[in-house]
Structures are given as structure tokens and as C-alpha cells.
């Protein structure tokens, strides 16, 4: 194209723009907004994905049934990342280049998000609520304004909880059981500074590998160091494994699990063995008899749509998706990435999952309040209100 053609084309484009409104962002047409989502549909985390997917789908379906956002329907494109970064790169390229999505919403996985977020924000695509370590994602995206994270950071929440609870419980010796890998790194990045501010050091540390099921040596090391608080940087099965070892020894010690261990599934699967386990909570866990009207509406709607009980992942996916939709609404009919960013930064979000009204500070959902919950009678009961 020579310069004259270029000038003519841009003049024509300007004229068209004047007639039909300003140029629109990728994925936004007169009738619809395309939103992408990649999940692990075939890999190791596939069993948990239906909840995440259905929670998101429900939020979007409800918005569409109510007439869409400023007259536009939301179309959700879902792809499989198999928990493999290579596959994630390919599907994100497909969503950006071929489906031309406006935003990526509720995408799952640390490695998969780390490999794709840079390319996505580089292409001008919004990334909202990636299910991955938030601080790392901002680092990968070089603090791009197009990335909005909502998942509480494991390091800062662990630190906050310990700085409050160690003096309150009168704990003198702290032991840590953590998973080797990024998750364990984050847990220790929370424990160590907390103990430093309190003038303490870690009395014992024991690392486990993903997939390990026997925790006798880890708990024995804690016992040998005579700790009076075990911080368990564990997920589902490992949390139960640690607790059943503690029970076996008949040891009366406080065990506090970080955010991922505080889930209904731990209480349900662990049964009597996890009774008395403490957990750091970053969002509300409602019991089956909760009377919260918003929660009830969500639960009934979910049951009607999918014929299943929603879990907390479905609730969080639903909550994050609603926040995204609120920001879209606030951005107005003339939509592009810049307007969305400005609007999203001005929104506050509160529903049946949040401890306090959340808003974006440096594009991360704040404040990160934590509660201390305890399993009593097979259910998580809040012991210390969010602080």
C-alpha cells in the first residue's frame, strides 16, 4: 500500500467512524462481546473444572437473559489447556487471533496463565481473574493495566493470619509442612516474614512432593521439634494426610492450613480425622443451612441449570464473572479496553462470597481480609471474624 492509498483508506475509515460511532475493540461487535476462557479439560485438574465452568456460564447466561450488556450478548469461548503451557499458548493464540476475544476470564492454572498472560496483554486483550498466583501474574505481565487479579495471594494472606494468630494463641514454636514447588515457595514467603516481625524463627520445616500420601515422617519431624503450631501448606489430600498422622500420634497440636486447604471438600473427605483443623479463609464458606438470600438464589439457580450442587469454586467463578460483567456495564455502550480498565478500577464488588467490598488497587482485588475457620462437626465454622 503506498502512501496515497493509505491516506485515502484512513480518510475513509475516519468518515465511516464518524457515521457509525468510534472504532470498536477486538471482540466487540454491535450484537455481541466475545470472551475467552481456557481450562484444564483433559489434564490432572479436569475433575474440578465443571464447577468453574458452570459458575462462569451461569453468570454470563443470567446477564444474557436480562438483555445482555448495553444490548450486546456475551459469547463465551471455552478451550482446553490440559494444564500444559504449550497447549495453553496455542489456544490463547486461537482465541486472540481467530476468535478475537475481548477478554480472557477465569482462566485456570499457574503455568498455563504464566505462559499466556504476557502475549495476551501484549495483544491488547484484557485478562480478568486468572486462577493463578496473582502477584506472579502481575510480574509476568510487567504490571500491565490490562490484567486484573482477584485470587487472594497465598503469601500475604498467610502472613496476615500468622501475625495476628501467633500472639493470640500464644504460640512459641512454629513448624511448616509445605509442598515443593511454586505453592510451597509462596507459603514460605508468607510464613518467614511473619515470624521475622514477631521475632521468631521456624522451628522445623518438612517438604513433600506433589503426589506424596504418607506424612508420618513430616509430622514426626514436627513432633521432634516440639512445635505448638503446624502451618500446613497443603491442598486437599495432603491436609487430610497431615491431620490423620497427628491423630494417630494422639498429639494435641494446632494445625493451620493455608487458603487452598480450607475447602468444604477437606471437611467432607477428612471426616473425624480433620476435626479441630484450623484454616485461613479468604472468602465465605456457607453451610447448607445458610439463609443468605443471594447465596440461596445462586444455589437454586445453579441446581435448576445444571442439576448439581455448586461448590465454592463455582461460587467464586460466578462471583468473579459477575464483577467482570459489572465492569463491562460500567464501561458503557462504547466499549474498548481502555474504557473497560477505567471502569473496572472504579467498581466495587460485594456478594455472598466476599468478606468486605472489594475494589482494585494496582489491579489486584483488595482488601485481602482473612478469617480463621475451624472444622467442628464436619463443617467449617468461623472462629475469628475477617480481619
Amino acid at each position, binding site marked *: 500500500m503506498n502512501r496515497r492509498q493509505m491516506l485515502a483508506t484512513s480518510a475513509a475509515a475516519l468518515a465511516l467512524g464518524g457515521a457509525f460511532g468510534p472504532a470498536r475493540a477486538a471482540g466487540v461487535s454491535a450484537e455481541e462481546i466475545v470472551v475467552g476462557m481456557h481450562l484444564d*479439560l*483433559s*489434564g490432572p485438574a*479436569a*475433575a474440578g*473444572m*465443571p464447577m468453574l465452568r458452570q459458575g462462569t456460564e451461569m453468570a454470563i447466561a443470567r446477564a444474557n437473559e436480562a438483555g445482555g450488556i448495553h444490548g450486546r450478548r456475551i459469547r463465551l469461548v471455552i*478451550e*482446553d489447556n*490440559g*494444564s*500444559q*503451557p*504449550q*497447549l495453553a*499458548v*496455542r*489456544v490463547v*493464540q*486461537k482465541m*486472540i*487471533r*481467530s476468535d478475537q476475544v475481548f477478554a480472557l476470564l477465569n482462566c485456570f492454572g*499457574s*503455568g498455563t496463565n*504464566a*505462559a499466556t498472560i*504476557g*502475549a495476551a496483554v501484549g495483544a491488547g486483550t484484557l485478562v480478568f481473574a486468572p486462577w493463578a498466583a496473582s502477584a*506472579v501474574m502481575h*510480574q*509476568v505481565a510487567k504490571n500491565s493495566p490490562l490484567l486484573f487479579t482477584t485470587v487472594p495471594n497465598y503469601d500475604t494472606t498467610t502472613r496476615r493470619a500468622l501475625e495476628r494468630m501467633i500472639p493470640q494463641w500464644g504460640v512459641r514454636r512454629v513448624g511448616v509442612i509445605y509442598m*515443593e*514447588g*511454586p505453592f510451597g*515457595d509462596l507459603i514460605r514467603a508468607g510464613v518467614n516474614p511473619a515470624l521475622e516481625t514477631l521475632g521468631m524463627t521456624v522451628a522445623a520445616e518438612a517438604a513433600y512432593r506433589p503426589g506424596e500420601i504418607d506424612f508420618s515422617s513430616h509430622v514426626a519431624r514436627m513432633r521432634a521439634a516440639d512445635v505448638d503450631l503446624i502451618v500446613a501448606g497443603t491442598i486437599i489430600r495432603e491436609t487430610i494426610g497431615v491431620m490423620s498422622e497427628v491423630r494417630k500420634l494422639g498429639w494435641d497440636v494446632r494445625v493451620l492450613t493455608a487458603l487452598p486447604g480450607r475447602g468444604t471438600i477437606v471437611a467432607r473427605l477428612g471426616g473425624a480425622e480433620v476435626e479441630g483443623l484450623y484454616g485461613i479463609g479468604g472468602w465465605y464458606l456457607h453451610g447448607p443451612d445458610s439463609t443468605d438470600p443471594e447465596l440461596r438464589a445462586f444455589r437454586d439457580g445453579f441446581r435448576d441449570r445444571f442439576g448439581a450442587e455448586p461448590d465454592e469454586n463455582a461460587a467464586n467463578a460466578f462471583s468473579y464473572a459477575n464483577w467482570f460483567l459489572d465492569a463491562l456495564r460500567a464501561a458503557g455502550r462504547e466499549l474498548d479496553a481502555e474504557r473497560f480498565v477505567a471502569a473496572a478500577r472504579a467498581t466495587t464488588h460485594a456478594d455472598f462470597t466476599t468478606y468486605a467490598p472489594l475494589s482494585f488497587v494496582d489491579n489486584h482485588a483488595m482488601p485481602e481480609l482473612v478469617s480463621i475457620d475451624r472444622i467442628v462437626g464436619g463443617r467449617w465454622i468461623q472462629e475469628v471474624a475477617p480481619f
Partner: protein
Amino acid sequence: MRFDYLTSYRQDFALLRHPADRAAYGMLAAALLAAPMVVSAYGLGELSYVLILCIAAMGLMVLTGFTGQVSLGHASFVAIGAYGHAYALSQGVPFILSLPLAAGLAALAGLAVGVPAIRVSGLYLAMVTLAFAIVVEQLAGMWRAVTGGYMGLAVPPPELFGLPLGGATGFYYACLAVTAMVLIGLVNLMRSGIGRAFRGVRDSEAAAHALGIRVRAVRIAAFGLSAGITGLAGGLMAHHLGYLTPDAFSLVLSLDLVLMVVIGGLGSLRGAILGAVLISMLPNAVAALKAILPDSLARQSGLELFVSGLILVLFVLFEPQGLNGRWLKLRLLVETFPLYRRDTFRRQKSYMRSERNR
């Protein structure tokens, strides 16, 4: 049927002997060169990835297909190539030097694995390589100063003599050039004395030894060569990913590579390429399949695993020679129609069984 009448040794040396071959491969090359003008940016990205996997599959083919050594740990050489390349780039080494450097690093690692590997074979060799892959994955997670640990390492965008290669087209041509170089190099190497030594070791170590082939040296060299080529693929893979974390080089990648060479057809470079194309396009095929299937079926998790498992089983049952074997049969059927005999391809000797005569 066609009989060649050769008038000089030159003719016998030619890679493409017949005008029809030259026309077919010429058209393929032209189509690949012209692809950026027709294919969308997304399609180019996919093509680049397929090419990267072709290189890695050819690397594994040298080892498994040509010397009969199984490796379940080739993802580790991809990882070494990728991390080596990314580290060298971040230290200011230019792309054109850093890529061979990464390949050399992977080749050294391959030689190191090859040394213990000459003492074991078959299933035990598979276990040694698997263990090596696990060690490398852990190392990539722990060695923070070089690999960035589990938090990952950003890969600088590729640049060639000041020209950015980061775009879809530039990167595609880079992948295409490397693939072509590796393919031509390997085709020539595999029909040279070295290649014949590889095959001799594969078919019978005892016979190879009797013919004066230094079996151990050949086996180690095959490991080094294979790892080097796979490392080259790793260097390009680093740019495909843009951000390296250890979970990109897990067992899944190793198994995918094994699937590629087995389904493609052991002992042929064409097979490696066909296998890589098939396996890398499988997720796209499953996604397309999901669009047609009823919602209840399409939402089942594990459909991908089922489809790739099914394909493997079908190949093992009905076409043990892989895609390459099927291709050769089809070609002969067309060439000799209606005189095609099925027995032409009856297996007379199996590579796997040769271990008995060692």
C-alpha cells in the same frame, strides 16, 4: 512399476531421483514458503508449533527409530535446550549463536545420559531416561539463579541481525529454516556410513560388532545427536512459550514425542514428521469433534485422552508400521495398480525381537 536406469553414480546419490518426486517436494516447499501470504496469524502460529514438534520428533526418531533405543525422557532435552537458549539470550548472546549453543548443551547432556544407558537396554533404558527427565524437571524448579525456579523465566523475543523475529511470520520462517536444515542433514546422515552403523546396531548388536562397528560409541553418539536435535527444538519452543516454567516439560511431552515416532512409523524421518503433524493437530481435531457432539458427551472430561489412546491402539493393531508404512503402501498401490500384492510388506524381521540375538 518403474525401473531406474542409472548412467552415473551422481544419479544414484540424488535425494530426489524422479521428476515426479522433485515436483511433489518442490510444490510442498513452495506451499510452505508461501503460507504466510495465505494463512492467518493464528494458523501460522500453529504451523510454527507443528514444525517445532517435527524437529523434536526427528530427534527422538534418530534414537528410537534408527538405533532402537527407547527414551521416555526426551522432554528433558527439550527443557535443557529451552532453558539454555533463554539463559544465553538473556546474557546477551545473539539468537543465531544461542540456538546452536542450546543444541550443543542438550547434546552434552545426551552424551552424559548415553554413558550409563549403554549398559542397559529396552525397558531398563526407558526407566533410566524417565529418571533423568524427572531429575531435570526438579532441577529446573530448584535452580533459581538460571531457570527462575517454579516462578518461571521470561524469554527475550528472537532477533536476527537486528531484525525482529517475534512476529508470526518471522518466527514461522525461522522454524521452517531450522526444520529444513535438520531434515536435509538427517536424511543425508542416515544414508551415510554413520546411519548404516545406527541401523546395524538396531537390528543386531552382535552382527554389528562382528562387522567392526563400535557398538557402544555408536549408541552414545546416537544419544548425543538425538538430544542435540531435540534441544534445538527446545530453543524454538522457548519462543513459542514466551515464559518458561518447569511444568511445560513434564512427562506428557515425553510421551507425546514417543507417540509421534511410534504412530509415525519407527525408522523413517517421514514418519516422524507425519506423526508430529498428527499428534499436534489432535487437540484441534478433538475441539472440532466436540462442536459436533451432543453437549452431554462434549462436556465429558478426558475426551482428548480417550481419542489419543484410541488412535494409538488402532495403529498398534492395524498398522504397526505407522503412518509412514500406510503411506508407502498407498503409494505402491497407486504405482502398481492393479498388480499390488499385499505380501510385499509382510514383516520379515522385527526390530523389537532383535534384542534376543544380542
